[in-house]
């Protein structure tokens, strides 16, 4: 594929603006740009063709089966996109006076109310732009909480070894030290290990439930007790809320703070990497620390207030990825009180169904009932045939499927983390199962073929070592 710069022809352009209708103005020479500005010079048709080509080499949710574990790649409803594009939302300036943005504020309020009900929280901020940003926000809330009580020795955040990398990374950004605890034989938090880890320096525990192995932490009440008794708070990484929404509320199981990934559980699209939205909910006793501005209501009028003495400040400019919140809101309104748990159940059913269809061939890392996802280990297969999780993933590419998440969670060797999601049909799962099984056979009979895979894709395996060793991170015009 050509780069847009390689499609450029000097002198070409799109005619977009009318001539300027006021007298020109010139900056002083020392304020002017000296460097040449080398942007593409192309016509509209060329741009259109360029991006059509790029799109053809992009795999979206509708291109095929996309069971990317931990990412909840469910269908992204079209109505949500249209709603987010309404001029009454998309063309609203963030600093308009409150009486001209009552609809935006009401939407935020409504989303807060619904998501608080779903999570069992009392308040919610939509400022965080993604899950990791939500984690950071939540951890700063924890920090501020302990500080407000004059409790300065709480410097540690406990994180299970199954946790996503963003958890410990967020803890560091919030000035905490991470204490990693090993999971038990059953893949769940080891209560003894937890008891040994908590103490006077415990600021909190970050937990994903179901965890990244797809297992529900059934001892959650005991876990919460241990952490709370030690004086710490409980943080819920909501990346995996999908299988339990409407079934279990984190707030009812002892969590004090949650973040959600609206771009996972609540069907907003992922945009090839973003934008997402990572709202953070908390219990009432933490509300005074929430970021500002916050939406308030008085006599049926909504307004923003920044007037909170104990606030942690702001996590970004303005109020968050507002249009993404709208999409999630439309989704919740669509599914409603019955549809939310039904989607959860569909996710769990699909995952268990697929797991059972594969477990005689591939080894399930932690057998038993899974929630929305299950983790296979290709370690035995690799020992037997030399074919790795990566090889299987690349083999799937040749079959028009997106591979599962590979090599995560870190505690499972040769991990293949499969999350079919609620919007996958039995038929497509059956087809996927067939392919997974064929690949297993292929690994046994012709491992080399899988080492070579993919062969049908636009490009084949890449030299990632050279990419990192001698980085080429921009187009070279010379």
């Amino acid at each position: 594929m050509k780069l847009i710069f390689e499609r450029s022809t000097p002198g070409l352009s799109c005619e977009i603006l009318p001539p300027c209708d006021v007298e020109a103005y010139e900056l002083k020479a020392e304020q002017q740009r000296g460097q040449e500005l080398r942007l593409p010079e192309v016509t509209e048709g060329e741009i259109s063709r360029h991006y059509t080509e790029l799109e053809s080499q992009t795999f979206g949710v509708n291109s095929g089966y996309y069971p990317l574990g931990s990412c909840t790649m469910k269908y992204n409803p079209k109505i949500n996109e249209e709603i987010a594009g309404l001029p009454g939302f998309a063309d609203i300036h963030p600093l308009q006076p409150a009486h001209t943005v009552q609809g935006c504020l009401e939407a935020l309020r409504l989303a807060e109310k619904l998501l608080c009900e779903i999570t069992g929280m009392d308040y919610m901020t939509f400022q965080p732009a993604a899950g990791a940003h939500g984690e950071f926000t939540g951890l700063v809330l924890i920090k501020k909480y302990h500080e407000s009580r004059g409790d300065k020795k709480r410097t540690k955040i406990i994180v299970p070894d199954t946790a996503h990398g963003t958890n410990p990374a967020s803890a560091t950004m919030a000035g905490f030290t991470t204490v990693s605890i090993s999971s038990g034989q059953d893949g769940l938090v080891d209560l003894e290990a937890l008891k040994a880890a908590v103490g006077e320096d415990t600021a909190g525990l970050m937990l994903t439930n179901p965890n990244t192995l797809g297992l529900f932490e059934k001892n959650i009440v005991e876990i919460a007790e241990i952490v709370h008794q030690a004086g710490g708070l409980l943080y819920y990484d909501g990346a995996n809320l999908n299988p339990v929404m409407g079934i279990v509320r984190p707030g009812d199981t002892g969590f004090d703070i949650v973040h959600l990934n609206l771009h996972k559980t609540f069907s907003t699209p992922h945009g090839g990497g973003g934008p997402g939205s990572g709202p953070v909910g908390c219990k009432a006793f933490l509300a005074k620390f929430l970021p500002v501005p916050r939406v308030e209501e008085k006599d049926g009028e909504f307004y923003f207030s920044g007037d909170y003495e104990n606030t942690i400040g702001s996590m970004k400019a303005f109020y968050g990825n507002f249009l993404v919140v709208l999409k999630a809101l439309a989704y919740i309104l669509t599914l409603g009180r019955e549809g939310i748990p039904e989607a959860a159940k569909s996710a769990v059913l699909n995952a268990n169904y697929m797991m059972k269809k594969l477990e005689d061939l591939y080894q399930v890392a932690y057998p038993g009932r899974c929630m929305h996802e299950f983790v296979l280990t290709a370690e035995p297969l690799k020992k037997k045939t030399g074919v790795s999780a990566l090889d299987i993933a690349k083999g799937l590419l040749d079959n028009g499927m997106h591979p599962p998440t590979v090599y995560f969670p870190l505690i499972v060797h040769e991990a293949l983390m499969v999350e079919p999601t609620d919007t996958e049909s039995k038929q497509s799962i059956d087809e996927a199962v067939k392919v997974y099984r064929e690949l297993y056979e292929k690994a046994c009979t012709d491992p080399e073929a899988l080492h070579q895979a993919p062969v049908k894709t636009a490009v084949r395996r890449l030299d990632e070592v050279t990419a990192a060793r001698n980085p080429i991170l921009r187009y070279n015009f010379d």
Partner: protein
Amino acid sequence: MGSYIPNSKAEQQKMLDFLGLASFDDLYNEIPDKVKLKGGLNIPAGKSELEVRRQMEALAGKNKVFRTIFRGAGAYRHYIPAIVKAVASKERFVTAYTPYQPEISQGVLQSIFEFQTMICELTGMDTANASVYDGATACAEAITMCVDRKRDEVFVSATLHPDYLRTVKTYCYAAGRKLVVVPEKDGVTDLAFLKENLNEKSAVFLMQQPNFYGIIEDAEACFKVAREAGAKSVMCINPIFAAIGKTPRECGADIAVGEGQPLGISLSFGGPYLGFMACVQELTRRLPGRIVGQTKDIEGKRAFVLTLQAREQHIRREKASSNICSNQALCALTAACYMSTMGPTGLKEVANQCLAKAHYAAKHISSLPGYELVFDAEFFHEFVTRCPVDVNKLMAKLEEEGILGGYPLEGPYEGCILWCFTEMNTKEEIDRLVAILKEGIQE
């Protein structure tokens, strides 16, 4: 009730049978009863598509869409060409995940590589990342890039956008970093203060160009002082201004960051927007977030891939340069498409029209009694005037005419107005504004 479940009840029953389960509830029998929600969610019943549309349209209808906007302050209304919207709504771009599988993600990867190149061109820097959440978090992340064990004090100009400053404060508070806000003097960074206070603990100085008041600051002088003190320099730059203004690189910055919203992204009540980050070669491995690099596949074909991942959270965990995982990729693609559509000439034209219209407006507004310019300094497309009448009343009057007036300032400049003019504002609109202001004084 709307539903996106593609299996019939009969099919689901077959699947349950296969699992040897009697009912859906059995799927959850590992979960202790005591933690299960009793009685279901207390939210409204699901709705059909048409009902949801009506409800959301009713909400949208409660907002006022202004025909004419003279307000910026961190969110700018520019013209968004039709092709940009068409490209940004292409289904696969919209629905793909982060391109972890390069063999089937060359489209997204290449679009990011092109974006990185354009951001480098705009800022004069060597490397750029694939985006962060917004301009404010880009500032905060840039500061983290500069801090180390020896130097951990942070200097930020008070002329930075107040939301950005508040965000930077929160990030510094979180990490336990000392933050010094360099005071503002006559609308610009107090250079003397900076000179006096930078020391051997100072890691970084950050300022915005044009600053929050629209003023083009003498960034070069500030960065020179920072460099002499051994601190790094960060410029938060408006990308439209960068097309004609001295680049961060030319001003001596080590890192350039900014809010990419003006590059083809709608106002959207504040988000999603686009944080961009670029830096000099030496700092490349300190950049946070995704970076796309060029390489070859085993057949020697050019290809793109996420690279330098040893910086990132999924590899380094608590030692990562940042926690960022999801970013604003689709906004980055939008911005790249916008820059391609405008091209070098077009982007400069946008900037020059902003500059010309703002100066035309300033000349006429400031000639009205009581509307003097507050600062005697060069500006780009925003400037501050006094206001001889009650600001709220003036705004209400403008609103009646479908005009969103300038932003009423708070704090030290309470009662003053920050105006913004872009290529979207016609001479006629500006003349009309001036006429309304004039009437207001006479009343």
